[in-house]
Every structure is written in structure tokens, then in C-alpha cells.
């Protein structure tokens, strides 16, 4: 069993090596199938590991690959481990990952960088698996940086377009800010606990008093890392821009897996956070604000992928809200359901973009329902799931978050409910504008409208099915059934649960809340239908006059502009000064001086070599005399 653990990440690495080195020598279909095949095998192995953990009382399976670093008292080894938390992430990463690989075979078929794309995708899966399988913070950090690198490479995959390159750079740089927080947090962990291994750190942490300053510092620093990777306020700006990458990349990296790394990190270090309620409060606050903030921006976006991107930011906010209330299981639950329906929505959007010949503006779509029936149906399921309508997946996880919020803090609940209302509105707006009404594109586009090939529709159908039934792994206790996910994950969060159980509410209240949420959402959906289908309203064209508030929202609250003028430009300015003055005037001059001085002294020193023997012997005797003089004193 332990040997199998190593197989999970090694297979995608192998795929990366084969497809990457094979380059143009491998045919397109072969490299696509190799890349998908390795992820499929990883998925099968993950399933075996999952059932093994489920049936046995064993809490984790681990394998030590080798001692990695040993320097002085510091040592870190490369040990891979699978416990229930990791197991859930493994299934999501390899399962959804495989479907997206399969989808890419059809989607990237005509791209000249086909093989490169698949090698990057495999590399990404490898690093993501390393991130969740490492048994210490250092290995997690390696995975963390690795997925960041792959994200950078894949956002800028079509590197001939310069704005895509800028988007890639932006993603990388903004993530670096978060990474710095992670790194500092890791240093502090080492200084405090003398180790980076989860088992040692967490077992020592148990003996700390609640809200010890050092724990608050560690958790906040780690959270800065999570904010960067999981695109929360104020570091979320890179994620909408990251939509420049090919759509499967948006689905895999920027919706289903990589951006949930922050959630994983907090859930993994749950004991640290539980012992630092102050940090937890900040996590919840940032989460709920991001959830609402991003949802409002989603209302007025016209790019099909941008709407989904802001929606992702918003949903990640919900996950952090759940974490911040100590409801770690709920956060993981939402990660799983979100992975299903958001991957589905992105892939559906990709299918639409494919049919539209690259067009992403929903104002130029409309009436696609009859042309793309499978895509429409699956997209509809995804939309229902994210809006929180039962019995689809999103309902259960979101309801659980809202129920916790109601018990925890009424303001959080109100904001969360507001956010879910906004979500339902912008998602149905997207659906109606894309698939209903009449076609608004060019005549040429209309002639080429077609349903996507099988390799694209099959993943859509599978994900749609998962979006329908995915919620049943976590039925609310009000239904008097077992919460499967909770009992499976309970060993991971046992220590936290001993100290602080998330607040509970009565079953009657829970039913009431559910009913309320469902009614509001259905009303909102009907409103959206009335506005966009019955009345046939369209979003304004770019540059059309708007009132103040919509204008503010349509410009995304000018956050990018603010960052640009207050951070980017001053930094540029300082950089220019340092370049002109420090680099050229001081450092270059110094370096040149050293070089010239060496040559000059060489020119002088070589003169002592006169070529005359008498002189040589004289110097020798003089030296001997000086040495003898030296020793006689």
C-alpha cells in the first residue's frame, strides 16, 4: 500500500518527462493520450488509497522517499503521505484533472503547441499532488511554487500575444507577495517548533495557550500566502487576468485545484488556526468580504470567462468564511462541489468559445441553446448547482456554510446570503444571455456554430452528473442521515474539534433557513429571466454612459488602476532611479574600477620579472635574509 503512495505523483512526472522530451517526435494524439493516461492511473491509485483509508482504522499511509536536506540541525525529508484530507484532494485533483486532460485532447487539437501544453499540464498535476501529499511545510512549499510556475507558463501559453504575457507576469508577481508570507510563516514555524514536519509541529502546538502571539503571527503569515494563491482581497486581481490562458487551464488550475491550495493549507494547519481565534476571525472577515465584493463585480462583466473568474473568487471567499468559523469540513466540502460545477462551467464556456470561433463576449452570443444542446444542458446544471438550488451539489455545501454563519455571526450570514443572491443573478444572466434569445454574432460565426466533439462533451456530461449528485456526500444532519464527508475527515480535525466545535443551530432553524434561501434564489432567477429573456435586455456597449454605481462596478471598483498608480508606478520610478544612479554610477563604476585596477597592477607587477639571473638570485637571497631576520626576533 505504501508503495502505491509514491506512484500517485510520480506518474504525472513521468508523463511530463515523456511528453516534454518527446516534443514534436510524438504524434499529437499519442502525447494527449499518454498525458491523460498517467493522470487516469493516478486517479485509480487514489481511489484505491481512498477505499483503503475508508475501510481501515489507519489514519494515514506514508512513504519516505529520501532525506532531502540536512544542514546543521535542520533536516527535511521527502515523505509522501495520504490521510483523509489529502485523499479527498487527491481524488479531486486526479479525477477532475483527468476529465480536463481528456477535454484538452479535443480542445487543443489544432494548436501548434499541443505537446508542450500537455507536458505543462502533467507537470502541474505533479506539483499539485506534491503540494497536498508532502508531510512537511517545505514539500508543500515546493509544490506551492511549482504550481505557481505552471500557472505562469500556462497563462502565458499563447505567448505571442503580449497582453497574455503581462497577465502571466501579473499572476506570478502577485503570487510572490503571498509566497513571501508563506515563507516567513514557515521560518517562524521552524524557529518556534524546531521542525517543519506536520506531525511534530501540530503535536507541539497543542500545548500552546489560545491566542499566543506567536501562533497569531504564524497563522496570519501563512494566511497571506493563502490570500495570494486563492485570490482573496486584496491580492485577487491576478485571477481574472489569468483567464488569458487556454480554457482547460482556467478550469483545472484557476477554478478546481490550484486556487484551492490556500484552503488546503489552512485546513491542514487547522490546529494552529483553532488556537488563534483572532486569526480565524480575520480569515472569516476577508472571506466574506471577498465573497460579496467579487460577486458584485460579476454582475456587470461581459466576458464569459471573466464572469466565471469573479465567481471563482467569490466562491473561494465562501470557503474562507467556512474556515474562519472553524467549520473546516464544510470548507473542504465546498472545495469538492465547487471543483465539480466550476470545472463544468469553465469547460462549458470553452465549448461555447470553441463554437463561436474564439469569441468570448456574451453580448455577441445568444440563442446557442439549439445549436449546442449538450453544452447548454450541462451548463444549465452547472448554473443551478452554483446558484444553490436543491438537490444539486452547490446547495448542500453552501447551505452548510450559511447555517454555520447564522449560528456564528448574523452579519456574516446576511452578507453570505446576499452574496449567494448575487451569484444566482449573475450566473443566470450569463446563462440567459448566452443560450437564450436570438443570435447576435456575425453571419460567418452563425454558419459555423456546431456542437463540440465527443472528447469535449463526455467530460461535460460526467462533470454534470457529479454536479447533480456531488452534494450527497455531505447531507445535512437535519435530514437525519450520516454526513459522510464529516465522518471520513474527522481524524484530521479531531484536535480542533476538541477545542472548538463550530456553532450549531437547531434543525428547525436550519429548515427555515434553507427554505428562505431557496425562495430568494428562485425569485432572483425569475427576475433575471424577466429581464434578459422576456424583456430581452442587453448589457450596455463599452463606453455607453452609465450612472455612478454601475460604472464603478463595471470598472471593477478601479482596483487595478489604484494598484497601478499607488504601487506599480512608484516601484517603477524607484527602480529607474536605482538603475540610473546606483547601478550605472556606483556598481558598474566600481566593477569597472576593480577590473582596470587589476590590469594596471598586472602591468606594473610583471616588471619585476626582468629576465636577469643576477637579479633573481639577489631577490632570493634578500628574501632568505628577511626570513632569517624575522625568525631571530
Amino acid at each position, binding site marked *: 500500500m505504501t508503495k502505491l503512495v509514491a506512484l500517485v505523483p510520480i506518474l504525472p512526472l513521468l508523463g511530463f518527462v515523456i511528453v516534454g522530451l518527446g516534443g514534436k517526435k510524438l504524434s499529437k494524439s499519442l502525447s494527449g493520450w499518454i498525458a491523460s493516461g498517467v493522470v487516469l492511473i493516478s486517479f485509480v491509485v487514489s481511489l484505491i488509497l481512498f477505499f483503503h483509508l475508508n475501510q481501515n482504522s489507519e489514519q494515514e499511509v506514508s512513504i519516505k522517499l529520501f532525506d532531502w536536506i540536512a544542514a546543521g540541525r535542520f533536516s527535511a525529508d521527502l515523505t509522501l503521505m495520504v490521510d483523509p484530507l489529502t485523499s479527498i484532494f487527491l481524488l479531486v485533483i486526479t479525477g477532475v484533472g483527468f476529465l480536463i486532460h481528456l477535454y484538452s485532447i479535443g480542445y487543443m487539437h489544432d494548436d501548434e503547441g499541443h505537446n508542450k501544453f500537455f507536458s505543462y499540464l502533467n507537470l502541474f498535476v505533479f506539483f499539485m499532488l506534491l503540494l497536498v501529499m508532502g508531510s512537511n511545510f517545505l514539500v508543500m512549499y515546493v509544490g506551492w511554487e511549482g504550481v505557481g510556475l505552471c500557472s505562469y507558463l500556462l497563462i502565458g501559453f499563447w505567448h505571442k500575444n503580449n497582453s497574455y504575457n503581462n497577465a502571466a507576469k501579473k499572476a506570478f508577481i502577485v503570487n510572490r507577495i503571498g509566497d513571501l508570507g508563506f515563507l516567513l510563516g514557515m521560518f517562524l514555524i521552524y524557529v518556534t517548533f524546531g521542525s517543519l514536519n506536520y506531525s511534530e509541529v501540530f503535536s507541539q502546538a497543542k500545548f500552546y495557550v489560545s491566542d499566543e502571539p506567536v501562533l497569531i503571527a504564524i497563522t496570519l503569515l501563512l494566511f497571506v500566502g493563502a490570500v495570494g494563491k486563492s485570490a482573496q482581497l486584496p491580492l485577487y486581481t491576478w485571477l481574472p487576468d489569468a483567464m488569458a490562458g487556454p480554457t482547460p487551464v482556467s478550469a483545472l488550475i484557476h477554478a478546481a485545484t490550484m486556487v484551492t491550495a490556500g484552503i488546503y493549507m489552512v485546513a491542514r494547519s487547522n490546529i494552529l488556526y483553532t488556537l488563534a481565534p483572532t486569526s480565524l476571525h480575520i480569515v472569516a472577515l476577508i472571506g466574506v468580504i471577498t465573497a460579496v465584493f467579487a460577486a458584485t463585480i460579476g454582475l456587470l462583466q461581459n466576458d464569459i470567462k471573466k464572469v466565471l473568474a469573479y465567481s471563482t473568487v467569490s466562491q473561494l471567499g465562501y470557503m474562507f468564511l467556512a474556515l474562519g468559523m472553524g467549520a473546516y469540513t464544510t470548507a473542504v466540502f465546498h472545495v469538492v462541489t465547487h471543483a465539480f460545477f466550476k470545472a463544468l462551467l469553465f469547460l462549458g464556456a470553452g465549448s461555447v468559445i470553441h463554437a463561436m470561433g474564439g469569441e468570448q463576449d456574451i453580448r455577441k452570443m445568444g440563442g446557442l441553446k439549439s445549436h449546442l444542446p449538450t453544452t447548454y444542458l450541462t451548463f444549465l446544471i452547472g448554473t443551478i448547482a452554483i446558484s444553490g438550488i436543491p438537490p444539486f451539489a452547490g446547495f448542500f455545501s453552501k447551505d452548510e456554510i450559511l447555517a454555520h454563519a447564522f449560528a456564528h455571526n448574523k452579519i456574516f450570514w446576511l452578507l453570505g446570503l446576499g452574496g449567494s443572491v448575487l451569484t444566482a443573478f449573475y450566473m443566470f444572466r450569463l446563462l440567459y444571455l448566452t443560450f437564450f434569445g436570438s443570435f447576435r454574432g456575425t453571419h460567418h460565426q452563425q454558419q459555423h456554430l456546431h456542437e463540440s466533439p465527443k472528447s469535449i462533451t463526455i467530460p461535460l456530461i460526467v462533470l454534470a452528473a457529479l454536479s447533480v449528485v456531488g452534494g450527497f456526500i455531505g447531507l445535512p444532519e437535519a435530514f437525519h442521515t450520516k454526513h459522510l464527508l464529516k465522518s471520513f475527515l474527522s481524524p484530521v480535525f479531531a484536535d480542533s474539534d476538541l477545542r472548538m466545535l463550530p456553532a450549531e443551530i437547531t434543525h428547525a432553524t436550519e429548515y427555515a433557513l434553507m427554505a428562505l434561501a431557496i425562495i430568494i434564489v428562485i425569485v432572483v432567477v425569475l427576475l433575471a429571466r424577466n429581464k434578459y429573456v422576456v424583456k430581452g435586455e442587453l448589457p450596455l456597449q463599452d463606453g455607453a454612459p452609465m450612472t455612478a454605481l454601475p460604472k464603478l462596478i463595471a470598472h471593477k471598483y478601479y482596483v487595478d488602476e489604484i494598484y497601478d498608480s499607488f504601487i506599480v508606478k512608484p516601484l517603477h520610478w524607484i527602480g529607474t532611479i536605482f538603475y540610473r544612479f546606483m547601478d550605472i554610477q556606483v556598481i558598474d563604476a566600481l566593477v569597472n574600477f576593480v577590473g582596470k585596477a*587589476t590590469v594596471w597592477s598586472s602591468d606594473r607587477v610583471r616588471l619585476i*620579472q626582468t629576465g636577469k639571473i643576477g637579479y*633573481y*638570485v639577489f631577490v632570493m637571497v634578500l*628574501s632568505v635574509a628577511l*626570513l632569517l631576520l624575522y625568525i631571530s626576533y
Partner: protein
Amino acid sequence: MKSLLLLSGLGVGAMVAELINIKRFLFPLVCLGLIATIGVSIYDWNTDIHLFNNMLRLDNFALLFTASLSLITLLWLIGAKKYIETETSISDKYALTMFTLLGAFIMVSYNNFTMLFIGIEILSISLYVLAGSKKNDLFSNEAALKYFLMGSFATGFLLFGIALIYGVTGSFHIDVVGEYCRANAGNIPTMFVAAIVLIIVGLAFKVSAAPFHFWAPDVYTGSPTMVASFMITVVKTAAIVAFLRLFFAAFGYIPGTWQAIISVITVLTMYIGNVTAVFQQNVKRMLAYSGVAHAGYLLIALVALTNLSGGAIFYYTLVYSIATLMAFHILYIVSDNKNEGVGFEAFNGLAKRNPLMALGITVSMLSLAGIPPLAGFFGKYYVFTAALEAGRYKLVILAVIASLISVYYYFKIIIAAYYHKSNKAPIELSPAHRFLYIASIFLLLFLALAPDFLIRWAK
């Protein structure tokens, strides 16, 4: 004993070969002899034989260097065959080479001051002749004369030092002198210290350490290119090992008396060697100064004198010799057998004229400059580690700066080979040379992969 007899036999045999006219068998015979000495060293491993009333001691340390010197000579011979056999008196040169190596063997296995002196003299006298072996060349003659005059002078100092040691201790035996040093560590007479200084001068001359290095650039430049490459590798290795043996067994007990002196010599050597090399326009002369500078790095291990020193010096000399030999062999071909040497422009366009030679000179220069991942880097690494273990931080910092300077002149050749154009005809290599370059490049890369593997033998 076996390897000494073998080499003397080969030397005498080579002279006889002139009489009975079997010169064309000499090359394979000598090569076989060298391989046999390596074999004998492996055979004798771990036996610790004492010869001639304990005047020679064939311990593992001695055997290790006997083998490595034979290997270096073998590599040298493959490239130098052309030089040896195009000039007159072929068998003399073979014989002299064998006698030089014999002297070197004695220098790495002596256990008695008389043996040290005899070894140095056997080595030196053969070399005086070899330096002048290009009889019609004025530079060659000048080099031989200069080397002879200054060499005799230095031997004088050495002998004087040995005499004073005898005066104080009443013995020529290293063991006895070592025992004396240990017993009187706190109370060493000035006469004994003066003896140490004089012996240091004699040996420093042989390793070409400043300020006793003046002969080296002139002699290396004037001697036939192939002879110079032999001197700068085999002789330097033998001399530094003689140094190390003496200090490990005897003077190591009283470091206070000599460490400051050798530290100063080390720093002077590194800086005079490196700084002067920067301005040289003649590649052969540049390599000569580079040889001086490397003597400085080697002396660092001597100053440190820890358990690592022996291994560090073994690894360093081997790697340095392979890289330097390859550079000289390439220089010899590039300079069309011109003895006085050529400027950097001779390397122009080498990458086009012969890619293997360009690669060879690049690997050689990078290794000498100590750029990872080549073996030269690990050589410096071990020497510096030994010094750091001994707490010699300032020395290491100075050495690192000195080796930075060296990058300047080593890279000049690489730049010429790859970036400058030339309209000269491509160079055809003989199979022997091709083998030599490939083997050397391979060794410089391979030894870098497993440095510990070699170092372990010298412990």
C-alpha cells in the same frame, strides 16, 4: 621497490635502445612500464614497505601519488610522442623522462633527508637537460641554463637546512626529527627554526612559490612546450607532496615556527601568479603564471595541515595536471610547434577549426578557473574546506578573491576560441590526440561527480 626498479630499468633500457636500434619499440614499452607501475602500486596497497634501512617508506600515501604521477606521465606521453620523436636523440628523452619520474617517486616516498635530497637531484638534473633538449633553439638553451643556475642555488639552501637539522638532532631520519619536534615543542632552538626556513626555501623553489618563483615563467616559456607541460605538472606535484610529507611527519608538531612564513608565501604566490598572468599576451607565459598561482592554492592545504590536506592535495594535483596537460597539448598543436609560444589570437576561430579542441580548451580553462561543475571547482573546494577546518578564514577569503582574478585570463582563451573569427584551415587530429582530449574531458567531468571517492583513498 618494484616500481623503482621498473623505472630505472626502463631508463637504462632506453639508453641502450639507442645502441641496438630498437627505438620504435620504445613508446609502447614505456607506456606499458607506466601502466605496470600503476598496477604495482595497486598490488602493494596496504602493505607499508620500508626500504633501505627505513630510508624509503612505501605507505599508501606514497603509492597513491606514485600511481597518480604515472597516470599523468602516461597522459603526457600520448600527447608528447610527436615532440619526442620528431627531434633528434629520441631515446635520450625517453630515458630522461623516466629518470625524472624516478626522482619524483623518491620524493613522494622518502623517509630520510638524504633520500629527499637524492630524489630532488635525480629529478632536477634530468630536467635541466630536458629543458635544453631543443638543442638549436636559443630560448631552450637559455631556459636550461637559468634553471640549472637557480636550481643549484636553491639546492644549496636545502642542503644547508638539512645540515643544520643534523646538527641539532643528530639524525637524517624524518621519524627521529619528528620525535625531536614533539619532545621539544615548547623549546625549539633558533638554529632548528633557521633549518626549517632554509628547507622551506629549497622546496618553495621547486613548487615555484613566490618570491622564489622567478625562474618559473622564464624556464617554462623557454623550454620546449612539451617539456614545460611535464615540469609544470609532474614536478610541481612531486614537490608539493615532498613538502606535505615532511610537514606531516615532522614539522607539523611545531606549527608556530613556520605557519606564518608559509602563509605569507602562499598569499604572495597566489597574487603574483594571478595578477601577472592578467597582462600576459603570450599564452604559454600566461599558463606559466597560472602554474605559479596554483602552487599558491596548493600551499593553502599545507598551511591548514588537517586530515583533509592529503586528500585535497591528491585530488587537486590530479585534476590540475589533467587540465593543464590538455591546455598545453592544445597549445602545442595550435602554435604549430613554435617554441617561443603564441598570443591569444592563435586560438581565434578554434571552435570552427576543430570543435573538439575548442571544447577541450574550454573545459580545461573552466576547470583551472574553478567553475562548477568541473573537477577544478571541487579541488579548490576541498583545499578551502581544509583551511576552514583549521580556522584559516582570512587565507580562504584572499584565495577566493585571487581565483576571481584568474577568471579574466582563462576566459580570454575561451572567448578567442568561440567568438573571434579566423580564416585558417581546419585542424586534423591524430587518433591519439582525439583519445587524449576525450579522456581528459571525461575525467574532468567524471572526477567532479565522485570527489569523495578519490579523497577517501588518501586518508
